[in-house]
């Protein structure tokens, strides 16, 4: 495999899954050329005159879409750990004897483990997606033999579809409620998952689109999140996913006193640095510490009589509380993390859906995250130069997707709120195992052992200079961790690349190596 050294000093392959790649040239250095991709031009002549696109089952729909060897099939992950339809799709493909498919979900979860047997058998050639838990471990161990894993952020995925970097042949989009024409939403069914923002790029750019719903509503479906004039077929089946499992590990507030302290410290930083002021905006993320941060900040806003302009969310009951208590004018919502969020989206006029194509797309005429004042995110590692990792653990094992993490780095102030070590494994390190965000993107690191501000952000350093915040250098924090834990040796990895990490613009930021 031919490798080159990119602008971040990382070695990356020049070709991935038979496609030539652009090595990362630096933040905001890559300019795309040409025109956006497009789906086939359809005509109403080919579609039912009465608008009824319902077919008996998913198998029929896939066959009618012309399913054949080598196609790319996409799904979305709004049901997260409660997803069942992705697994059904590939069981059907196996049954039909189709081979060499590429699965291109917006993210994969441990519940998708049954698909790995279809990778082993050759029904699926490879998977390009954020890979969580066992899915990531499978790739890390070198078991996805035919192709490389390609990790993109949520925005990077939507952009890749728009730019034609990935062409989707068939998109299978679960929608909790839909009409016969294919108009659909995620809030007026019997099993709801809220916003359908991960699915928008798929809807617009795929050649064929199947809507899978468990509740057929009369035309017109109200409200409409996914427009039926992009849809080929509608499948109605009893079960489309388990909404109770939307709330997984990363979407519950932390109970650890140490992590609550980190969240509180991050909120105090935001307040002290003057970011928390009337009309400001914040990204409310998933992850135990981020949720607790939102909670702490909301309390401080209440005490100070401050109201936010808008919250970009990952919506949860905490963000919904903010809206309903008048602490924010609006929620712009890309993903519901609990059923309270689904309820609010239905009931609150100022709780509006967005999509990854709109909020996170780097190849657009602006995007929402560039407008956000502050985002608090997690990380598996941060190095002394402020480079950060979110996909691999220090042993090299890939266990998390990038999610919206890279996209949120474009907020005016990006805070990584992390413990300085976890069970003797340092989080503040000399060098990150995998580079997922270049140093200039990370403004502040908040740990239980103090706050480190990126030296590039002299404005934030000045704003907090005379405060009682425990501001230290990141090196001091690293040294304290090392004096406690001991100096770690570097884990041994093979030199075989099993996946690549892309930056938001599609350039290749780093390689992930097979573990020993």
């Amino acid at each position, binding site marked *: 495999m031919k490798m080159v050294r990119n602008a971040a000093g990382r070695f990356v392959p020049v070709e991935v899954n038979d496609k030539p790649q652009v090595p990362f040239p630096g933040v905001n250095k890559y300019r795309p050329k040409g025109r956006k991709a497009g789906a086939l031009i359809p005509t109403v002549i080919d579609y039912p005159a009465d608008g009824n696109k319902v077919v008996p089952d998913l198998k029929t729909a896939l066959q009618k879409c012309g399913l054949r060897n080598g196609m790319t099939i996409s799904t979305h992950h709004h049901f997260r750990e409660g997803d069942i339809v992705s697994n059904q799709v590939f069981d059907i493909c196996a049954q039909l004897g189709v081979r060499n498919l590429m699965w291109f979900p917006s993210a994969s979860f441990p519940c998708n483990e049954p698909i790995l047997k279809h990778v082993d058998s050759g029904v699926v050639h490879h998977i390009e997606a954020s890979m969580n838990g066992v899915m990531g471990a499978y790739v890390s161990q070198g078991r996805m033999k035919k192709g490389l894993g390609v990790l993109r952020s949520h925005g990077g995925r939507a952009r890749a579809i728009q730019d034609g970097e990935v062409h989707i042949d068939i998109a299978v989009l679960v929608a909790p409620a839909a009409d016969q024409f294919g108009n659909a939403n995620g809030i007026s069914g019997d099993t709801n998952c809220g916003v359908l923002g991960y699915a928008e790029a798929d809807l617009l750019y795929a050649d064929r689109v199947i809507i899978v719903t468990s509740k057929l509503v009369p035309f017109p479906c109200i409200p409409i999140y996914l427009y039926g004039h992009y849809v080929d077929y509608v499948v109605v089946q009893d079960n489309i996913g388990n909404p109770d499992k939307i709330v997984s590990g990363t979407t519950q507030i932390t109970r650890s*006193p140490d992590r609550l302290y980190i969240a509180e410290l991050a909120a105090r930083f935001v307040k002290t640095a003057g970011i928390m002021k009337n009309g400001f905006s914040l990204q409310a993320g998933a992850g135990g510490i981020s949720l607790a941060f939102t909670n702490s900040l909301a309390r401080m806003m209440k*005490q100070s009589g401050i109201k936010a302009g808008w919250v970009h969310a990952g919506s949860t009951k905490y963000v919904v509380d903010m809206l309903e208590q008048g602490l924010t004018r609006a929620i712009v919502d890309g993903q519901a993390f609990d059923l309270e969020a689904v309820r609010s989206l239905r009931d609150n006029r100022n709780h509006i859906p967005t999509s990854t194509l709109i909020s996170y797309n780097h190849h657009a005429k602006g995007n929402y995250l560039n407008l956000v004042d502050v985002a608090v995110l997690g990380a598996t590692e941060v190095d002394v130069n402020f480079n950060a990792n979110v996909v691999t653990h220090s*042993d090299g094992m890939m266990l998390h997707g990038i999610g919206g993490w890279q996209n949120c780095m474009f907020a005016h102030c990006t805070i990584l709120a992390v413990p300085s070590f976890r069970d003797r494994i340092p989080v503040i390190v000399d060098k990150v195992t995998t580079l997922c965000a270049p140093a200039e993107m990370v403004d502040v690191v908040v740990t239980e052992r103090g706050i480190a501000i990126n030296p590039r952000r002299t404005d934030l350093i000045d704003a907090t200079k005379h405060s009682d915040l425990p501001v230290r250098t990141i090196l001091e924090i690293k040294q304290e961790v090392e004096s406690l834990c*001991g100096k770690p040796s570097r884990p041994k990895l093979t030199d075989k690349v099993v996946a690549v990490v892309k930056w938001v613009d599609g350039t290749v930021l780093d390689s992930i190596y097979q573990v020993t």
Partner: protein
Amino acid sequence: MNSQGIAGHKGRQARSDCWVSIEPTDSGGIKLDIKSKVDFLYKDSIHALVRKGLDRLGVSNAKVCVEDQGALPFVIMARLETAARRALPNNKLPEYLPETKPHKSTTRDRWRRSRLYLPGNEPKYMLNAKIHKPDGIILDLEDSVPPEEKDAALTLVRNALIALDFGSCERMVRINQIPAGLEEIGPIVKAGTQVILIPKCETAGQVKKAAVRIKEIQNDSENDNNVFLMPIIESPLGMFHALEIAQASSLVVALTYGLEDYTAELGARKTGSATECLWARSQIVNAARAAGVQPIDTVFADAGDTEGLKQNAIQAREMGFEGKGCIHPRQIPIVNLAFTPTSQEIEHAQKIVLAYEKALKQGRSVVSIGSKMIDLPVVHQAQRIINLAMAGKLSRNLEERTE
């Protein structure tokens, strides 16, 4: 007779701890089997640490197994030492001590608003306790440690005192009831403890014995750092001896009490309004003040009821207490705030101290504000309030954290 010695915890629940088994053999050297969750970062250093420890402890022939869940070196050392002692109960083994780090010393007059109890045999709670900013951290050898783990806890607590930086928190240990607890004083004083809590204290004699033991250790080890005592009274008899207990030694800096055993012995019913312990609380405050030591309130047992804690702490402050025990980090900011003077109190104290200084300058022996005469104890109390206000400079943030 030698047998297998086991120490520590294993399994996924045992975060930041490790499990050590030592089976002495007659010959064949050391057979070492180490499984560690953090092998990929620390394999060589863990092996070296265990080898060095076995050598130091004089274990030369044994089958040694370690299962590690990310324990820090001082924890591995403690577990190894305990396992060796248990395997060789008839041998007199040396200690396997971590490297000593410099520690700040303590003073008699410092704020003891909050003190956080941590179970002495659980390493995971010790590592980050300082970040919650209690005035003191108590490593407990008594009720949170089952009888069969007392030796393991003592070794772990000793190592934690040596190896961990507790920041601005006073380093406290609750020993077992005297006389059993006397044996624990040696190791923990040498390891740098600053306050020893004497539980279930009933007589002045128990305090005196502890004080004598401390002096012996300090003389032997040429250690002249302050080590203070805080007796805990937990019985009706102890309550009647409260004044003598508080006056038993110059090392006593504070007096506190416990309610579990006390209410059981009284035959009282535990109530939310705490009427059953009104006399006990008053007795403790009066005895402590009469002896010139700090009266400290007991813990509030329901860690989930923050509003109840707040009311309870405010009431304690009104009664004259200067601090309160905590059993969960979330109680700390509430307790610190309750025992930190209000801005009116600080302003008033400033007026008194300024008037006193002015009087001194002018060579007057009588201090007054307006027409009101100020006595010297009042000036001292005012000075203490100002010191406290400076120690509690985070009070503004505290107010926010507790609404």
